[in-house]
């Protein structure tokens, strides 16, 4: 077994021709497969075919984007990060394939109807209720329907990638949409006189 390649050697060998490149690709494929297999070992829903398919996709992407590697990490770490992202994306798509965005959305009044917790004192519940009511008003006044739909989907566990897919958008745009929504709500809560400490105290 050869000594591990340094970054410069990986770059050289993967850009080379013939046997040098072929050997580098084989080594990289093996490394990515071993790493991915170990990290998904505990999952019962992932088979070797899935891993090999993901690694093959990742290799294509890595070879097409070698110029994007900036050398701020080991090359193999960078390559593994790309592979993990592709794997997780495929798993999310499979997990959420039958779930619509609409099924994740709740009308505001239902979504923010605060359950009474038996361990909460009446005074504390009243404080929680006041905060939630303020939040409800802010959501109705400050957020678009799209922002609320994305927010409830995210709260329900739907990955941003899947929200984006259903909206015909991309992950960054959805993140920015949600970030804008959170900023608006934060500004509204602060204007209403609430601090982070007030919230922690009310929901402690």
């Amino acid at each position: 077994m050869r000594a591990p390649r340094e970054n410069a050697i990986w770059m050289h060998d993967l850009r080379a021709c013939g046997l040098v490149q072929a050997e580098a690709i084989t080594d990289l494929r093996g490394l990515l497969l071993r790493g991915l297999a170990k990290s998904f070992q505990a999952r019962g829903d992932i088979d070797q075919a899935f891993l090999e398919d993901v690694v093959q996709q990742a290799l294509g992407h890595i070879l097409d984007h070698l110029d994007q590697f900036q050398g701020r990490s080991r090359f193999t770490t960078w390559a593994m990060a790309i592979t993990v992202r592709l794997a997780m994306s495929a798993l999310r798509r499979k997990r959420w394939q039958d779930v619509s965005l609409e099924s994740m959305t709740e009308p505001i009044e239902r979504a923010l109807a605060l359950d009474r917790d038996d361990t909460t004192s009446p005074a504390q519940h009243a404080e929680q209720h006041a905060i939630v009511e303020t939040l409800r008003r802010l959501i109705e006044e400050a957020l678009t329907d799209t922002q609320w739909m994305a927010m409830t989907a995210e709260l329900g566990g739907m990955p941003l990638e899947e929200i984006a897919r259903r909206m015909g958008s991309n992950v960054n745009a959805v993140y920015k949409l949600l970030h804008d929504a959170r900023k608006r709500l934060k500004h509204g809560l602060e204007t209403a006189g609430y601090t982070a400490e007030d919230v922690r105290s009310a929901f402690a």
Partner: protein
Amino acid sequence: MALRPEQAKALIEMVMGTRDQEMTCDECVADIAEFVEVQLTGKPVSEALQAVQEHLDRCHDCTDEYHVLRQALDALAEEDGR
């Protein structure tokens, strides 16, 4: 679906923890390899990489990917006897 108190708390804390400038998922992906290697050394994270940690604190998708990446790298390091 009424919000349980812990869900309401999580939502509002997420809102109150919002920063004016936040790293997007693509920006996090660009830095995650460097970030995870610094984490593996146990050294403190630089200011430039602090934004990655802040993004992971609020993005479940990127956090899941980070954990899988860590496990993969830990496994490979064990192979190499590092």
